[in-house]
């Protein structure tokens, strides 16, 4: 199915959860934050949160800063 991650189209398998998506994108679990359709998904719900066709995922990452 098709989803969008940070405005980029992406193909993922049905029933992909957030943790699996991060693995697929080769992004670290620590230091990442995820919102689906502007709603922040808490880390403890990543495994239970299944992505749906057309979802707009926002992916954030901790970086250096002052």
């Amino acid at each position, binding site marked *: 199915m098709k989803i969008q*991650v*940070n405005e*980029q189209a992406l193909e993922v398998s049905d029933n992909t959860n957030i943790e699996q998506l991060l693995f697929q*994108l*080769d*992004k*670290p679990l*620590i*230091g*990442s*934050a*995820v*919102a689906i359709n502007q709603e*922040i*998904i*808490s*880390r403890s719900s990543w495994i239970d949160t299944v992505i749906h066709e057309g979802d707009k995922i*926002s*992916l*954030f*990452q*901790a*970086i*250096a*800063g*002052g």
Partner: protein
Amino acid sequence: MLFKELQSKDKLIIGDKSFTSRLFTGTGKFNDQRTMVAALKASRSELVTMALKRVDMQHQDDDILAPLIKNGMNLLPNTSGARNAKEAVFAAELAREALQTNWVKLEIHPDPKYLLPDPIETLKAAEVLANKGFIVLPYIHADPVLCKHLEAAGCAAVMPLGAPIGSNKGIKTAEFLEIIIEQANVPVIVDAGLGSPSHAALAMEMGADAVLVNTAIAVAGDPVAMSEAFAKAVEAGRQAYLSGLGGQSTQAIASSPLTAFLEASL
């Protein structure tokens, strides 16, 4: 009271954490990760700031988090990039998920030229975040009235600026920082603009509880050595403050007895 007696009781407590070092550091602008980690270690800082950004899907960012966690540093995510209270609250909630901490350096600076903090939006966001259980450290102008409002809103500390972010100009807000420090019931952390160890020492001599330094260390010719210099300056400034600085006078006050023996020997 003697410094040694005061020093034994001299602990900085913010929210649920106690700090030995009064130098907080930023992680931005370092040339490379190895230098950053070495400089942060040399600073003996126990609280380091981080930012959050939308992931660039085409580009793999360095993992700067692992070495910071490995070295036992407490992380203070900021809300840099937020232009209003709503964006700052969203950024703080994302940061809480990303870094698993409810500490946040609240910064809202909509103007990219001077990066001056927006006091109205900052107060609004501080109220919301404190109610949501965040340990809120707001970056603000050196405004004593705003500081009291932020304190009433439940902020764990206040972070008034010395000069614009990254300007290295030092403490241009001294008169107002003094009022803030005199009135504060929460720790006062002087943030932004501290360009040299003497600026940091001055802030500490004035009675600031801590300082936050990033640019001056990160862009130094030798960031690791500069980090040590800042650590010494902060310690010296705190020691001077606790030791009780002498008062100033417009007229000279002799340090030697003014006897007339020189004239007598002629």
